[in-house]
C-alpha cells in the first residue's frame, strides 16, 4: 500500500478545508438512519406489487376508518397542544427576558429540569397525579370539591395535559431566544413617542417576536404529530394517534405494508413542516440553543 504517500495528502486536505471532518457524521447518519428508513419503505412497499397496487394500498389505508380517525385525532391534539404551549409559554418567555438574574435562574431551572427528564418519567409522573386514585383526585375528594373521582387519565384531557407538559420547554426556549434578540431600544423609542405599554406590546413587541412564535409553534406541532409514548400511556381506547396506529400494525397486527404507508404519510408531513421551519428559523437555535 502507498500509505506513507497517501497519508500526508489526505491529512493536508482535511486541514486545508475542515469541512471534510463532517464526513464521518454524514456517513454514520446515511448508514444508520437514512438507509434503514429507505430500506424499510422500499422493502415493505415493493412486496405489495406494482406502482398502481402501491397507490391503491395507500388510498385504501388512508381511507380506512381507523386511520382516518387517527389522522384527525392527531391533527387536533397536535393543534391544541401547540396552542396551549403558545398561550402558556409566551408569557413565561416574556418574563424570562424582563426579570432580574436571581428569578431568571429559578424560572429557567423549573423549565430545564423537566426538559431533560426522561419522557417516560414525566408521563409516569402525570399518570400518578391524574389517575382515578391519583393525587389530584385524592385532593379534590378530600376538599369536597367533587363527590366522585374525575376522569383525568385515559382520555383526551390526559393526553393534552401530558403532551403540553412534555413539549412546553421547546416552546419557551424557542420564544426566549427570539425575544432576547430584540433590541430593547425599539420599545424605549415606542414609549418615548408616547405609546402605552399595551400599544407598544401589540404594535412593536408582538410583531418582532412573530418569527419566534412561528418557529416555536412549528417545532411543537412537528414533535406532537409524531408523538407516541405519552398518548399511548395516557390516552383512552378511542384516542389513537397515528404514531400509535403505526406501532400497533407492526407489533400486533403485523401489517407491514399498512405501517409503511402510514409512516410515509407521517414522515412526509413532518419533512414538509421541517422545510418550512428551516426557512423561518436559524436551525442552530433549535430548542433554544444559543448560536
Amino acid at each position, binding site marked *: 500500500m502507498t500509505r506513507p504517500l497517501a497519508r500526508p495528502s489526505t491529512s493536508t486536505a482535511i*486541514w486545508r478545508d*475542515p*469541512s*471534510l*471532518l*463532517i464526513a*464521518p*457524521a*454524514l456517513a454514520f*447518519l446515511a448508514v*444508520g*438512519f437514512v*438507509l*434503514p*428508513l429507505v430500506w*424499510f*419503505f422500499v422493502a415493505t412497499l415493493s412486496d405489495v406489487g406494482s406502482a398502481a397496487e402501491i397507490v391503491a394500498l395507500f388510498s385504501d389505508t388512508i381511507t380506512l376508518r381507523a386511520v382516518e380517525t387517527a389522522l384527525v385525532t392527531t391533527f387536533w391534539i397536535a393543534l391544541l397542544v401547540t396552542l396551549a404551549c403558545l398561550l*402558556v409559554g409566551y*408569557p*413565561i418567555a*416574556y*418574563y424570562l427576558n*424582563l426579570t432580574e438574574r436571581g428569578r431568571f435562574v*429559578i*424560572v429557567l431551572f*423549573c423549565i*430545564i*429540569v*423537566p426538559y*431533560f*427528564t*426522561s*419522557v*417516560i*418519567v*414525566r*408521563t*409516569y*409522573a402525570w399518570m*400518578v*397525579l391524574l389517575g382515578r386514585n391519583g393525587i389530584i383526585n385524592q385532593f379534590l375528594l378530600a376538599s369536597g370539591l367533587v363527590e366522585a373521582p374525575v376522569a383525568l387519565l385515559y382520555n383526551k384531557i390526559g393526553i393534552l395535559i401530558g403532551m403540553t*407538559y412534555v413539549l412546553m420547554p421547546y416552546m419557551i426556549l424557542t420564544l426566549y431566544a427570539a425575544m432576547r434578540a430584540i433590541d430593547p431600544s425599539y*420599545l424605549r423609542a415606542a*414609549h418615548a413617542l408616547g405609546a402605552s405599554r399595551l400599544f407598544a406590546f401589540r404594535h412593536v413587541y408582538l410583531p418582532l417576536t412573530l418569527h419566534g412564535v412561528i418557529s416555536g409553534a412549528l417545532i411543537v406541532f412537528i414533535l406532537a*404529530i*409524531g408523538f*407516541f*409514548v405519552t398518548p399511548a*400511556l395516557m390516552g383512552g381506547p378511542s384516542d389513537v394517534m397515528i*404514531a400509535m396506529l*403505526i*406501532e400497533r400494525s407492526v407489533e400486533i397486527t403485523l401489517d407491514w405494508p399498512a*405501517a409503511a404507508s402510514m*409512516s410515509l404519510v407521517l*414522515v412526509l408531513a*413532518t*419533512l414538509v413542516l*421541517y422545510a418550512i421551519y428551516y426557512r423561518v428559523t436559524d*436551525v*442552530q437555535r433549535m430548542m433554544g440553543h444559543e448560536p
Partner: protein
Amino acid sequence: MTEREPGRLLSLFVWTMCVFLLAPVVIVCVLAFGGSGYLQFPPSSYSFRWFEAFFGDTRWQQSLLASTLIALTACAIATSIGFLASYGLVRGRTRIKKLILSFMLTPIIVPTVITAIAMYFLTAKIGLIGNVVWIGACHAIVALPVVLLILVAALQGVDVNLERAALSLGASRARVFLRIVLPLALPGVLSAALFAFLASFDELVISLFLAGVRAQTLPVRIWNSLHMEIEPVVAAAAAFLIGVTGVVLLVDAGLRRARPKAAART
C-alpha cells in the same frame, strides 16, 4: 428600564406555571421515599424500601447495566463523530453549512416510532436484537443532534485567532487541533458527552423495539410496568432517572463556569 418590569399578574402566572412544571418531578421523587405499600401523597411515612427493592432486584439491576452500557456506547460514538463534524461545520468553508446541520438534526424531527421501526426491520434481519453495542449505535443517531447543537455553539466561542496564531508560529494543523482547539473546547465536549449519555439513557422508543428480552433498559422496564399495575418500585426507578438528570445538569453547570476560565488561561 423601569417601564419593562414584569407586572404582578404576569409574575403570578409565571410562578404558578413554574409550580406546574416542577411539581410532577418533585412529587415522583417524594413518592419514591414513601413508606407504605401503595402510592400516597404526601406519604404517611418515609423509607428507602423502594430503593432497596429497586437496587436489590436482579431484573432492575440488569436493566441498569444494559442502560449504562448502551448509553456509554452511544455517548462515545456521538461525541467523537459529533465533535469532528462540529469543528468541520464551524471552521469549514462549505457554503451549505445550514443545510448540512439541518439534515443532521432530522433524527429528532422524524417521529421516533418510525425510526425505531425502520431500525427494527434492519436489526431483525441481521439478528442483532438485544445486542447492547448495536442498540448503543442506534441511540447514537438520536444523540448526535444533541452533541451538534451543543458543540457548534461551544466551538463558535473559540477564538479563531488563537488557531491562526499557533499556525503562524509554525504549529501543524493537527497539533493546533490537539493542543489549542481540543483544550479550549473541552468543557463543551464534556457537556455534549454528558447530554449524549443522558439522551440514550432516557431513550425509550428505539430501545422498546430493539431490546428484545436481553437488553431491556430502565425506560423499557418502566414502560412495561406501567402497562401492568403501577407499583411503587417504579417511582424509585423514575426517581433514579431524575437523579441522573440532576447530576448531568449539575456537572454541566460546573462546566459552563469552566468555559471562560479555559479561554483566559491560554
